[in-house]
């Protein structure tokens, strides 16, 4: 009997899982500077919201449909009094005198709830630096978009270079302004992430971000500056990086007129102010993302005596096969397409060859069609 379909046997179907990594470089000029207005300094690729809880960074003016969301910037601090990352008491303690006290504490609590979880009493646990063994009470959050992170950030690939020195005015025109001060940016990496990550987060695995400044030495416990949640795609930096002495002997003033410790800094200014100030200090961000590809491979095999004729209307001229002159000539067909069908003959997937393949009764073909999910 003639047939156009061939049933796939179980040996023709193979399931595989692969990890695909892409390099994601984000230059500081995208984060601040490239799309600034020349007249009023407005940043067209930075989206501020009326709620003022975070700021979004796009790769193009965000009103354009071509724009892609890259990441958000926000800050928050713990509503609980206690020691900061240096083990020192808050000074001042969290206070409702801060006009955005609620927003900042809610932001911290939300992030902690998702990324750190709860203790046995059901209370939200604070972010904790496992190297220093201290809580991180004031934090900068950089949640990266799923477009960039895909399934997760590849462990050991993250790098964030930013200036922790200089005043907001000096950074106002973008990160380039600080380079004129002659100081080097500090690079935060998850250097040991590939083999030294932690698994006690409800959001998946996380690594420690270390800074590379000379004092203390990079990868020392003292250089532990934040956390990187790989599957969530969120970097959490302690605000202490802006404290004098944390990353070498640099001068720090995250916001205008402040040259104080992180606790004081975070009590003043809005989240948008902080987001601007942090963005303007970023020189470069890079990481590799990971996409988990679950694939099914269908081996479509055409044996020598199969698929040698065609139902193409041009195949026949008055019912005679065009590619044959005599009945004894070998049948020839040319395949360009593989159709994968369900049991009820519905076309579920289709694959196209880049050029026609000749099929005769003297050759056999195996086409490997991979569907990724």
């Amino acid at each position, binding site marked *: 009997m003639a047939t*156009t379909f061939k049933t*796939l046997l179980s040996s023709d179907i193979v399931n595989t899982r692969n990890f695909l990594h892409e390099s994601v470089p984000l230059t500081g000029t995208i984060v601040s500077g490239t799309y600034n207005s020349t007249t009023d300094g407005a940043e067209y690729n930075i989206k501020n919201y009326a709620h003022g809880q975070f700021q979004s960074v796009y790769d193009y003016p965000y009103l354009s449909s071509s724009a892609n969301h890259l990441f958000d910037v926000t800050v928050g601090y713990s509503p609980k009094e206690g020691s900061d990352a240096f083990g020192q008491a808050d000074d001042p303690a969290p206070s409702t005198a801060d006009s955005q006290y609620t927003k900042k504490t809610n932001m911290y609590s939300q992030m902690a709830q998702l990324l750190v979880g709860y203790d046995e009493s059901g209370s939200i646990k604070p972010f904790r630096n496992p190297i220093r063994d201290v809580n991180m009470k004031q934090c900068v959050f950089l949640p990266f978009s799923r477009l960039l992170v895909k399934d997760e950030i590849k462990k050991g690939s993250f790098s964030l270079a930013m200036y922790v020195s200089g005043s907001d005015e000096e950074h106002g025109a973008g990160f380039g302004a600080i380079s004129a001060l002659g100081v080097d940016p500090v690079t935060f990496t998850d250097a040991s992430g590939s083999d030294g990550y932690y698994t006690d987060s409800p959001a998946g695995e996380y690594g420690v971000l270390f800074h590379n400044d000379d004092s203390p030495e990079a990868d020392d416990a003292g250089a532990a500056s934040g956390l990187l949640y790989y599957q969530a795609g969120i970097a959490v930096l302690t605000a202490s990086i802006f404290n004098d002495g944390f990353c070498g002997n640099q001068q720090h003033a995250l916001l205008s007129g402040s040259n104080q410790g992180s606790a004081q800094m975070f009590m003043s200014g809005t989240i948008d102010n902080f987001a601007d100030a942090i963005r303007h200090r970023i020189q470069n961000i890079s990481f590799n993302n990971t996409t988990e590809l679950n694939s099914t491979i269908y081996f479509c095999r055409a044996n020598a005596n199969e698929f040698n004729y065609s139902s193409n209307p041009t195949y026949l001229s008055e019912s*005679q096969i065009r590619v044959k002159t005599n009945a004894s000539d070998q049948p020839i067909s040319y395949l360009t397409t593989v159709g994968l069908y369900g*049991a009820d003959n519905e076309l579920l997937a289709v694959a196209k060859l880049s050029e026609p393949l000749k099929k005769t009764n003297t050759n056999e073909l195996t086409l490997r069609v991979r569907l990724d999910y």
Partner: protein
Amino acid sequence: MAFLDNSGDIILDAVLTDTGRMRLARGDGSFRIAKFAFGDDEINYESYNKNHASGSAYYDLTVLQTPILEAFTNNTSTMKSKLLTVARQDLLYLPVIRLNHDGNSFAGSTRNLSTRADADAGGSYIVTADESSRQNIGNGQIGVLHGDSTGVTDQNPLAFDQGLDTTAVSISTNNALSPGNPLRETQYIVEVDDRFLKVATPADGSIASVSFVDDDQIASYFFSEVADTAYVENITIGGNEGNRVNDNQSPLRGPAGSRLKIKLRATEAATNGTYLFTKFGNTGYQVIAGGDNYYYIDTTLRITGFTTGYRVDIPIRLVKKQ
């Protein structure tokens, strides 16, 4: 879709069709790939030149240089012609499926929509959507089929004959594509837009059971020679010994196999309203020159031989009096 880069290694560009994605999204296990077929939609075998002066290496040069488009995701836009497996490798003739517009007991001629004249090839059928339109058009118009529930009963069915359309092979009981012959078509797939038309039985015009309706509202009906004898029948050999023909009704000039018979009925939505016509169709077609104007929708009836893969598209114009 653009052409695929054919300058280097052979690549395979695979996508899920819209139906595949719909089934995957449904999450009920209906997305299960069970079989495959090969297609050659882009190939024009007329460019195979077996008389090329430079020799056999050049016969298929043009064919092999055919550029291939990226995969379409619309499931009805691809795999129009499939490669065929037949155990015998020494075949010189293959069967086709022809619309039978000659037989006295079938639907009759198609019409050229512009001239309204009988079209030997490339014509269309007109299907009336309601009784009023049918009565207004009256009898005797070329290529007009009664698609309303009353008129369909006395409408002759559409017939599609399968077999060899050549005089090079004589018609005889010895070479007929009788049951058991590997080139005989035993199952037919009828595809029609479910919003406009339904397939009906050739006997009384009652609506046939649809196999499935895809995401583009294309309904597929399966008719097999074994289970659906009301739709699929054998084409017998008639005439006298030495001057044999296919039952005096078939357009096929060579040995014939099976015949599919169906009727078409307008859907209730097309019969009872004008919404479909204003959304998908147009106005102002005169079925009779100088006569009344009709709403119309142009659609296609597709017949595919499940076994042989041969496919015929018949243009249909559904009309309703304005």
